[in-house]
């Protein structure tokens, strides 16, 4: 049996040799990620009256508020080809996969502080299992959207079944950002508050609750979240992605961010447990 060697900045010194090791350890953590995910999900609503309904209450309240404001003439939102309620619910489902995932992932290491500095546990498993908490919530929201189709007399295209798969790119981006942000939050606890504020701001630059014209501002055009939210929702409304190039570019960008963030996380993660 080989010796496991612990030495200063072992992973920094490894250079590109760290890549196969990263993925080997990630795949080896698969069962642990699943167990931690089940642990947190099953404990989450155990002492809650509404339980899993909490996954749908916030988007329903948000959409109802905008509908009400629209009726009173406070805001003027017009969407084409689809009832506004379905447009907003689909946008919120994708957005909240990103926002709740990144906020939960960012706080994951600090929230597991009692474990991180007492057990040699895979830190990526802790972060990724926390980010994964957003997936069942997203799937519950998908059911809410499906329930909304007959209510608002909208006949969805068959391709809307691909909606859950089309969010993979934004989920990959969420996981990547969460890895690095969880590390930064481990040494600087303000990070999770900053991330919460930034996601709120980013929501304004992304067509979640209202359409945005990408031609009107370069900020919209360069915002990958624009394409990553719009693309899956297009499948629900039109049965196709209206800007496939933008969506593909944003998906590639997400993958690149994930790889860079995962590598950064892997080589710097040893600095965090001692600061918990």
């Amino acid at each position, binding site marked *: 049996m080989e010796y*496991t060697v*612990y030495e*200063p900045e072992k992973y920094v010194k490894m250079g590109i040799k760290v890549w196969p090791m990263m993925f080997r350890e990630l795949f080896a953590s698969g069962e642990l990620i699943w167990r931690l995910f*089940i*642990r947190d999900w099953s404990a989450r609503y155990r002492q809650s009256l509404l339980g899993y309904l909490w996954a749908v209450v916030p988007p329903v309240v948000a959409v109802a508020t905008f509908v009400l404001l629209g009726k009173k003439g406070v805001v003027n939102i017009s969407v084409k080809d689809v009832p506004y309620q379905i447009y907003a619910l689909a946008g919120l489902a994708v957005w909240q996969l990103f926002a709740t995932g990144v906020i939960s992932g960012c706080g994951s290491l600090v929230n597991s502080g009692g474990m991180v*500095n007492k057990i*040699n546990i895979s830190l990526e498993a802790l972060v990724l299992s926390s980010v994964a908490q957003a997936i069942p919530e997203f799937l519950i929201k998908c059911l809410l959207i499906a329930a909304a189709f007959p209510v608002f007399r909208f006949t969805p295209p068959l391709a809307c079944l691909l909606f859950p798969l089309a969010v993979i790119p934004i989920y990959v981006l969420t996981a990547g950002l969460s890895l690095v942000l969880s590390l930064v939050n*481990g040494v600087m606890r303000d990070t999770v508050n900053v991330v919460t504020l930034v996601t709120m701001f980013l929501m304004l630059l992304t067509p979640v609750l209202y359409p945005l014209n990408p031609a009107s501002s370069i900020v919209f055009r360069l915002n990958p979240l624009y394409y990553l939210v719009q693309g899956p929702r297009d499948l629900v409304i039109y049965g196709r992605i209206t800007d496939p190039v933008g969506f593909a570019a944003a998906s590639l960008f997400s993958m690149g961010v994930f790889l860079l963030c995962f590598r950064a996380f892997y080589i710097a993660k040893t600095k965090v447990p001692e600061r918990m």
Partner: protein
Amino acid sequence: MSDTVIIAEEVSKKFSKNIRETLVYGVGDVSRNIMGMSAAPGDIRKGEFWAVDKIAFELKKGRTLGVIGPNGSGKTTLLKLINGIFMPDRGRIKVRGKVGAMIQVGAGFHPMLTGRENIYVNGAILGMSRKEISRKFDSIVEFADIGDFLDAPVRHYSSGMYIRLGFAIAIHCEPDILLMDEILAVGDIGFVSKCFRKFRELREKGISWVLVSHDMGTIKCYCDEVLYMDGGKSISYGDPDKAISSYLLDMSRKKADISRVRTMREFTPSEEGRIVDIAFLDSRGLEKESFFTGEELTIKIEYIANERIESPVFGVAIYGSDGQMQTGSNTKISGFSTESIHGPGSVLFKMKNLPLQPGVYRVRADMSDSNVGIIDMLLEQKDLRVEGGNSGVGAFYTPHEWVLIPGGNG
């Protein structure tokens, strides 16, 4: 092939005392590492200190290393370095085999989940597959012995039950190396003895064990070698008796500095007489300050009686470094008749087998008259130092012998 399972090569770990510096240095170090740059871990910055400083040892398969030292000496940090929770800032640690760490058992428990659910989660955290946990489930439950609480959320567990379940899971990981940090302090006596039976069983299977404990009895019973740490440094490494003795002596000295003032008392002798000197003599009558547990010790009290004193009473008291009296007697309690004294003389208090465990002690002698009370009292300024030998364990040494009578006809 070498049978060494742990090699620590001048391993060091630094920490910062100040939270703000921890934050600033942390952000800097993580940022540098994220960009693939070195954070120069071997350099010490303002406010940082070496929590573990150039510790070196080797542990062979099937052997047990005890780690002792005062609080804050770096013992737990060293265990975390061996376990790979912390990375060294200098030096290197090489570990061969599956490590089972019991630094804080039950650390991965979710308070809302039941004991049953937590067995699966904690097992996975400790590296067991679901299949493996299912196979060992009954054995874990039997070992934990928590009865009906298995299906109750662990937040309703007592601290003892929490430890029992955590321990039961950890012990079923089948490690090659077991790291243990004083975790049995809260278990009841039945559970603790069950755990030690399990340890013996595991040791017979050849696992190596690193044990951090403040209980010198446990260390002495189980450890083949002992590392005594203080201030992050290795003070003594190797022979358990030597390391334990060195530790107890140092602790005793440190405490003595605090308690000396408390135990010192000024006493103005009466005109009848006074105690002139106290000396510690060995079996040959030679004066010395350091004795071994179980060795013969004579405390010689020299006095001057300025006038005739009828039936004086001489007393001796030995104080520990905490200022508490450990043992003592006087001639009256012992039924020793002193009749009368006049002029200079000495009284000998002989102990055939010194019962004191290693440490630093202070000796007080007093002389009294049955009529006027205390004539004089003297606290010896020199320490009585006791070092360890094959003295057994516990609060005090008792002279003893063993007899084995095979066949049950004794």
